[in-house]
């Protein structure tokens, strides 16, 4: 999310190397024991590194962009990159067997590229072709590939191991990368990175003021949201159990409470009826 327009190949290599190192040394790393975060030591360090980079580079750039760019231009820029992304989103929907969604994505791209003037206007949304959110990591998840734990990618931010390994595929499928002219390609990379960061302005204030531990909150948030997206799901309705926390008589208190909480925790993970097992949930690295 805080991608900088550095050379693409070297970034990929760096990410790949980091993944390899971390995966190899992962078993030796000890964290505070969160089952989905065996690499907590590394992740915390990388999280704070990314924050430093963001504070020094991306955030100021995004603020400048926000300040000098008229609102309609910003919307147009967002639409333009969103339109390019719809191609790969459609392919992923197809790979996941969601033909209807894939057709809708194709329709969006055709319509917005023509009537929407090269994607500057999102006319497809106006006529009810909804924008989707897919990537290769979600496709792998849908196919049953486990998450493999939480992983903070240098410069890019929170991912899971599975989604990190899927990144090179997403990069390859990025139409911006197909541009032959290196200069304009890099300009597009840069503008997109700054625009993406602009859409998140204000988040760090919320994280700063609204959480006790930014790292933990961001991690738990990312993982929950990611599972929800992988299954295109709806949140569970198993909250009734929680009443037990408030009303259990003292005698049966411990059992009731922990049972309720456990069920809730499970419910939180089980964001959609699970067609496929999540090896990552149970595997203990």
């Amino acid at each position, binding site marked *: 999310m805080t991608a900088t327009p550095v050379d693409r190949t070297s970034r990929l290599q760096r990410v790949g190397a980091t993944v390899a190192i971390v995966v190899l040394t992962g078993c030796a790393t000890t964290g505070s024991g969160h089952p989905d975060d065996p690499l907590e030591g590394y992740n915390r360090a990388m999280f704070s590194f990314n924050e430093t980079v963001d504070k020094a580079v991306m955030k100021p750039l995004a603020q400048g962009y926000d300040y000098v760019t008229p609102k309609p231009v910003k919307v147009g820029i*967002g639409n333009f990159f969103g339109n390019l992304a719809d191609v790969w989103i459609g392919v992923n929907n197809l790979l996941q067997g969601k033909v209807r969604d894939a057709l809708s994505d194709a329709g969006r791209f055709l319509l917005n590229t023509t009537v929407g003037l090269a994607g500057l206007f999102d006319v497809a949304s106006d006529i009810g072709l909804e924008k989707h959110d897919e990537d290769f990591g979600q496709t792998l998840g849908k196919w049953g590939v486990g998450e493999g734990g939480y992983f903070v990618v240098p410069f890019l931010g929170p991912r899971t191991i599975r989604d990190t390994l899927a990144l090179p595929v997403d990069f390859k499928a990025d139409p911006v990368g197909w541009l032959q002219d290196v200069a304009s390609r890099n300009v597009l990379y840069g503008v997109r990175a700054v625009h993406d960061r602009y859409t998140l302005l204000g988040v760090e204030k919320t994280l700063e003021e609204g959480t006790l531990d930014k790292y933990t909150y961001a991690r738990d948030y990312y993982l929950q949201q990611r599972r929800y997206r992988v299954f295109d799901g709806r949140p569970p309705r198993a909250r009734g159990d929680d009443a037990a926390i408030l009303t259990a008589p003292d005698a049966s208190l411990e059992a009731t409470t922990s049972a309720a909480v456990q069920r809730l925790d499970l419910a939180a993970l089980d964001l959609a009826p699970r067609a496929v097992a999540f090896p990552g949930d149970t595997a203990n690295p």
Partner: protein
Amino acid sequence: MKRLISIFLFSLFAQLALAADAAPDALVRDVTNDVLTIVRQDKAIQSGDTRKAIDLVEAKVLPHFDFKRMTALAVGRDWRQASPPQQDQLIDAFKSLLVRTYSNALTQYRDQTIDFKPLRAQPDDTDVLVRTEVKQSGARPVQIDYSLEKSAAGWKVYDVIVGGVSLVTNYRGSFAQEIKASGIDGLIKSLQAKNKEFAGGAKS
């Protein structure tokens, strides 16, 4: 982490209805519309006046939330280990934290539109999920759902779920961490310190 903004942004609109027996979906819709109408006309809030946003939230939104249940949900299994005075302090501190966070988010509101989904519930249900969808041009819509429970004082919101993430239970990890390290009192102290640090809703 993506779309945290919109997330926090809209978590707050689960609100209002003067009639205690208003239907839960009507309650959410009326409070949301009410609050957004005010924000759209309030230049101070739009330019980041958090104090003013907090006043708005306290007047319009707060009465429709069940903060005791929210706090219990956020604390999780350690809740029953807290003494009644500790529970009160926790509720108080968590409430301030949430109100401040949501008020901040409200200052970020611009031109998103909100779709209210049909309520899927039986007339005698006492626990329902009201579903909404926030749309913004050029972005994927974000689902924001509100869990409400019927009480003697009308329907009360006890959870807000944004894009599949419960804004309440998402605190559980960091709260448990804090309790493990320094007990219930440690958690109360941390929350109070956080609130003190950002008290007053300084202009951003």
